[in-house]
């Protein structure tokens, strides 16, 4: 992935999230306070607005910028989590203009580490980490299989439905949180699906 592809990815993610804004908020209504769609939409819109201004940035700096924009504009819980993830990827990709093979797996596992630290959470807590973590694992040393990655994201998302939520507002519901898909997991799935879409389009 080069800077242009990264931008493409962010633009597509933004469009996708804006399409699914109400769906994400409705999911959050069941487990949280019903604003996840609004938050993500606001944040990625700000990212897309920024893209034009951030023309000459390196890939690493772009990721950092995206991260801090998400912290600032998403707010809530998702802001610092997504923000940290992007900032950690940016840090991992310092000096790299084209993410390949091990850089992918390095970047993603740093992102997962960041989310786990920031959210004081681990996999199985029924959060977006349950998408990010299997996705990171699906990046092996070689060139990524985008189909594998997409399906890892999908399965991770689905798995949250059966989990007792342990972190975030959903945790207030205890056992009653079972039976609901986590909204942050869904937005993360969209993010990775758009990554796969972008990269697959580039391969053709």
């Amino acid at each position, binding site marked *: 992935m080069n800077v242009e592809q990264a931008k493409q990815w962010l633009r597509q993610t933004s469009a996708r999230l804006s399409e699914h804004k109400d769906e994400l908020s409705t999911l959050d209504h069941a487990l949280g306070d*019903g*604003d996840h769609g*609004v938050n993500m939409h606001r944040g990625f819109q700000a990212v897309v607005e920024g893209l034009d201004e951030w023309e000459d940035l390196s890939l690493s700096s772009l990721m950092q910028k995206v991260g801090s924009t998400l912290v600032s504009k998403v*707010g809530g819980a998702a802001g*610092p*989590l997504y*923000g940290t993830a992007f900032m950690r990827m940016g840090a991992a990709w310092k000096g790299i203009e084209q993410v390949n093979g091990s850089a992918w797996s390095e970047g993603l596992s740093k992102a997962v580490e960041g989310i786990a630290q920031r959210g004081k959470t681990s996999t199985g807590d029924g959060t977006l980490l349950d998408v990010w973590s299997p996705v990171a694992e699906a990046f092996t040393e070689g060139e990524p299989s985008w189909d594998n990655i997409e399906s890892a994201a999908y399965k991770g998302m689905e798995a949250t439905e059966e989990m007792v939520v342990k972190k975030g507002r959903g*945790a*207030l519901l205890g056992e009653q949180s079972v039976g609901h898909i986590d909204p942050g997991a869904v937005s993360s799935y969209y993010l990775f699906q758009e990554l796969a879409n972008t990269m697959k389009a580039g391969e053709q």
Partner: protein
Amino acid sequence: MKKLMNDPEQIVTGFLEGLVAANREQLQRLEDTDVITRRVLKPQKVGIVSGGGSGHEPAHAGYVGAGMLDAAVAGEVFTSPGADQFLSAIQAVDQGEGVLLLVKNYNGDVMNVEMAQEMAEAEGISTEMVIINDDVAVSDVKQRRGIAGTVLVQKITGALAETGASLKEVKRVAEKTVNQTRSMSVALTPCTLPAVGQPSFDLADEEMEVGIGIHGERGVDRREVVTSEEIAKLLLDHILEEIPEQMPLALLVNGMGSTPLIEQYVLANDTIKQLEKKDRDVQHAFVGEYMTSLDMAGISLTLLALDEELSGYLQAPVQTVQWKQ
């Protein structure tokens, strides 16, 4: 949904601008942020910052002023402000003595503040965070939310900071206050988010929701509306379980946003009577809208177990827009 507003997305901005416009000598808004600070800081003092999602007015910007907060950070409605905003507030009020952040126990708030603390540290500003979790409706103590009791922590901590106490000392007293503060709420109606336009939950005409938070989330129990006397008893029964016997009390009766003052005082009356029947000494009673949930009708009760130290800071002078004494 009928609200006095313009663009629903701009309601927080309208509030902050209005607050500053009406109180120009006292308050200012940091440029390009939703941070409200005192216009003039008291020199050589630990900075006290609080903040969180909006929709809880007058919290927190209404409590910025001598004897209470130095800055308040406002997020979107019910959404934690980003770490960058907390950082701006920290930078604005730090005078070399460090900054204490008073944070209601919500995941998003805590994470954003922690990020801001890391950034502040990188700039050489020392900070501490104290997490407020007074809501006894939530049985899992780790998940307990910060609700109206927050303002008592802010009042006491602010009064102590005003004396020039160290960051460590201010943190100690803030934590002690948190440990001795318990609250619980009841809603007669849900609230409606400006940008959503739909009530946050449905409640039948004769129902009330017990143990709600301040973000329109459902409570822990739903039952038929009962009298003010019975509501007072219900909430007190839960709260008193965790308040040491014998200690004198401060009571806060807090309206949730659209409960008229006449009703708040009716409930205050029943609450004070019941506490006195139990031989509890209510040394201070506060009644009004301190920590709201948009246009929710309902009430929360907070009890704070007092010792001389806390009682003194609670009585200390304060000059904010919303709390003056």
